């Protein structure tokens, strides 16, 4: 597992890093044990109104991408997959 402060170079490492953050920082504190990569994190309650900001901080600080206010929405942050897509897009 990559250390959380490194910027991963491979795609699957990036997804793992995103998944791990969500798992330990957002899902587990709510008692949610598992979620799939394409599942809507809002509908299942993994992400709530406070979790959004922790997630954005993670993207900005740990993954080093700048996310604009308009990019913080139901489409980009919907699932592990869409979050990964967002990061890849921002890194181009």
């Amino acid at each position: 597992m990559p250390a959380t402060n490194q910027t991963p170079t491979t795609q699957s490492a990036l997804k793992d890093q995103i998944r791990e953050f969500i798992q330990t920082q957002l899902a587990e504190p709510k008692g949610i044990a598992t979620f799939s990569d394409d599942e809507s994190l809002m509908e299942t309650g993994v992400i709530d109104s406070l979790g959004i900001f922790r997630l954005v901080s993670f993207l900005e600080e740990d993954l080093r991408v700048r996310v604009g206010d308009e990019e913080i929405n139901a489409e980009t942050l919907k699932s592990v997959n869409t979050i990964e897509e967002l990061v890849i897009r921002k890194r181009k």
Partner: protein
Amino acid sequence: MAYLLQQLLQNSASRYPEKLAVWARGRSITYRQLEQRSNQLAHLLRERGVRKGDRVGIYFPKCVESVITMLGIVKAGGVYVPLDPQAPVDRIAYIIKNCGIRVLITREDRRRGLDSATRESLAFTVLVDETPKSSNGAALVPWTMLGQYPAEQAPKVVLTETDLAYILYTSGSTGRPKGVMLTHQNALTFIEWCADIFKITSEDRLSNHAPLHFDLSVFDVYNTLEAGASLYMVTEDLALFPTELANFIENQRITIWYSVPSALTLLLLHANLKAEKLNCLRIILFAGEVFPMKYLQQLAQLLPHVDLFNLYGPTETNVCTYYKVQRERLASMDKLPIGIACENTEVFAVNDENEIVTQPGETGELYVRGPSVTYGYWADTEKTKKMVLPNRFQPNFEEKMYRTGDLVQLAEDGNYYFLGRRDNMIKSRGYRIELGEIESALLSHASVKEAVAIAVPDEIVGSRIKAVVAYHDGTTLTAPELQQYCSTRIPRYMIPEAIEFRGQLPKTSTGKVDRVQLAQDALGSATTLVAP
């Protein structure tokens, strides 16, 4: 003059049939459609055996059908019970059983999540999905069946304002939620005060931010119907994203917003609010928790054209006091009062000597009397007797008063100020949480020997929750495991964000767990409350 909630709809439907009544997730219905569909649902329910006073559960995420369902049930003489679509199924099953709910209006995916015993205990279930996946016989009724029933008139049911209209379940200190019984009169007492003081008209566009099992939504839904206004429901795809929420307020030209303060704080901090974009807003109301002064001051400055009101009141009475923010005084205040009693409600504070407080500076527990007060808790005479008491200050006739458990202080200007609770009830994001309910959930885990839930003050949400747990020798337990376990028993917002394990919990000299010590320890170590 309306004495039943459905008459609010009936009156507005005859005046404004083609007006948009409810909007949610890009869909909307007119007053005519709302009136007709709710009539049809009422006939369907009656035909299948729903009788006056029967409790009917509403169990699906917010959509236009939510309002059709609420009105359809009351028109059938039933009592609607909104069930939190995000609550653990165990809690939903408990409420269904506790409340004697035999009819459920739900979605197929929610229904499937319930255990089979609960599903089988129901007389029938109405599915609001477009196309139900399975329809085994009479027990599952698709929404499309509504079309077969009369639309122009509601069924004839003899109801008075003293009949129950809905039951709202709130956190219970002994571990299980309790159902607050509310009548048409309870709701209308509140609505009539609102209509008058906020001068709500058919031109208004009200948002509905609160979930339907929270009494803030009573304001949104029934004030809309009363005035012939339009209701714009906030669903989770909007609620979570401040920018989206701000866009919603702007695009739907919302004129009246009512929510818990933490929703406003998040908007303020993250949505880049611009006064000129929100120029349709004329009133913002907030309730449910203390609004941190600095954020309120920022909001007041940012939106100078908007009237701001602090509303206060437990589910048992809906709003009972209010305070209108005066901007010129705001800068010099460090605390906002809960204000004075609403019209047609009386409040008073009772001190330790059992006397009504009359002098400025005096403190006491707040009591409420009048037609907004609940009859009590469903199937819980013991708890009801503790909180809904004979009014001993009324010598001439019998009446009830409700003890809020809130300590207040009377000020010079006649306003009341909230001081704190008598007990272990806390607010987090406006949610009412009994620490005892969390502790019960923790203690029910086989490995847990002792458990205490502590509220850690938080600037934005009021309180965050930490638990300190001792587990039995020979067992092991991790925080994620215990949080997972809790998620099957209590709603997410009650699950402790951090859990500390100790061999034993500190005790006082009388052998009780030393909560004060634990609270102090928690304050000392809480910089960020992040799960281990």
